[in-house]
């Protein structure tokens, strides 16, 4: 479905990604794991069109993405839930959802999509008229995911979903994500700092370090991978936040 071929990405003059190549197949849940600043988010942002690449290319269902602006990429079927959620703080919950369906295709189905989101996350229906900036962390994350789903994507990118959320909320959201993946065959890419979460939800994973991919494999393989258990699981003491 999606192929990233040998890309290099830069923030201004500073190189962040070196020769990244990876594949995403339809219907799977793939995760990128790595410590802070490793480049996982950068890969996502490059796919979504927020970071321009120099060299290499990204192909989604046969179409090259590298020259396209973000909104065109959304039209093609890729939607991203950005790090830090980036909700529209002064718009209501409902408005945030509505605006998520801004592409032509999505706007026709807006009404029914909103109903679907309300089924997935009932709290959002309750809070429809509330201004997004006043929601709790978990509710904001749900809204952010809901907003991204409003675009009716074929591929959903979720960047650092668990940051600042309590384990219960994360569990709930993960459940919803996995259900959507199963029922609607929605392909999902998950970037997570918390390796435990990443490993519990995904089918496959890539380990990113210093802007390069250093390992890849099925979840079972990764779970018993020495690099991961030593480097990541050892230090991953999850504190309760929120």
């Amino acid at each position, binding site marked *: 479905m999606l192929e990233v071929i040998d890309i290099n990405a830069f923030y201004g003059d500073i190189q962040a990604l070196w020769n990244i190549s990876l594949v995403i197949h339809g219907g799977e849940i793939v995760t990128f794991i790595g410590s802070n600043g490793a480049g996982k988010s950068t890969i996502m942002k490059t796919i979504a069109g*927020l970071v321009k690449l120099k060299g290499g290319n990204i192909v989604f269902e046969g179409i090259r993405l590298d020259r396209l602006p973000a*909104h065109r990429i*959304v039209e093609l079927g890729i939607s991203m839930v950005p790090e830090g959620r980036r909700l*529209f*703080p002064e718009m209501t919950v409902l408005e945030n959802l509505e605006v998520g369906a*801004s592409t032509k295709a999505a706007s026709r189905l807006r009404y029914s999509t909103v109903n679907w989101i309300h089924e997935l996350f009932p709290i959002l229906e309750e809070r429809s008229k509330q201004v997004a900036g006043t929601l709790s962390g978990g509710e904001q994350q749900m809204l952010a995911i809901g907003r991204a789903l409003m675009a009716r994507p074929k591929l959903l990118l979720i960047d650092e979903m668990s940051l600042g959320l309590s384990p219960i909320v994360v569990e709930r959201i993960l459940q919803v994500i996995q259900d959507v993946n199963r029922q609607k065959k929605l392909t999902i890419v998950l970037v997570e700092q918390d390796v435990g979460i990443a490993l519990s939800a995904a089918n496959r994973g890539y380990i990113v370090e210093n802007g390069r991919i250093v390992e890849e494999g099925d979840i079972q393989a990764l779970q018993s991978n020495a690099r991961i258990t030593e480097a990541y699981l050892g230090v991953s003491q999850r504190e309760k936040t929120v």
Partner: protein
Amino acid sequence: MKIFIQTIAYGVLVGAMYGLVTLGLGLLMGVMKFLNVAHGTFIVLGGYISYWLFALYGVNPYLSIPLVVIVMFLIGLIFYKLTLSPLLKLPSIGSRIDSSMLITFGVIYVVDNLMTIFWKPDVRTIVASFTGKSIQICGTKFSVTGLYGFAVAVIVAVVLYFILGRTSFGKRVRAATQDAEAAGLCGINVHRTYFISSGIAIALAGVAGVIVVSSYSINANGGLSWLLVAFVVMILAGEGNINAIVPAGLILGLLESIGVFIVGAPYRQAVALVIFIIILMFRPQGLFSKRGHTNR
């Protein structure tokens, strides 16, 4: 007492016009963080269009508004494409504001002088059947042009409120204003949104020009004084607070009118100046802003 009520009435009418004059500037600033110092110039341009329609074809200025809107909207699109869109490549918001100030400053030179060459620097005003007349309501005199101006201001403000608040386009504009990158991720073509918003902003300036030329007068170089009015109202309303602009204009109009009532007409500018300084010193984020003291 009667004089005082008259003063209030006058202040309200003038204030509504002040608000109308500011809408275009506030929209550009709020949505794109561009400061269009040529805003006054566009007001004058809109006024000229209305003036010539009246002088040559006898068109009632208030009826000319739709045509002015269309023409100025197109001019706004051109203005955006030529001078503002290149600035979007600049990295930070701060440099965007400064560069937009500089560039639109150059636009003033070009357009003001074009207008001076084509239309001479003479002062123009529309003298029609309603000019200078006033009507009495409850014993208070209201000038006819002032009432028309008030009506137009209120209508435009309400229409703008609905466009921004209720339509899909308006929501896209608000989204792009609050987080342009996230808006892109929702499939919003942010550049096109900016493009159309610029057209609207200049069209708003044009409508303000129609009211200015029919209630007062315009001349080719007079844009600056209206720009300054718009500045003050925009600061009063608070940055990005488009719905607060007409109320802020009303407040300015009232304060100015009351101030003049107290100290006398020759000191009108001094009154406005004092108001402005007080606001700058004690509440530079405006009267309606939720955020705290804006400081860099």
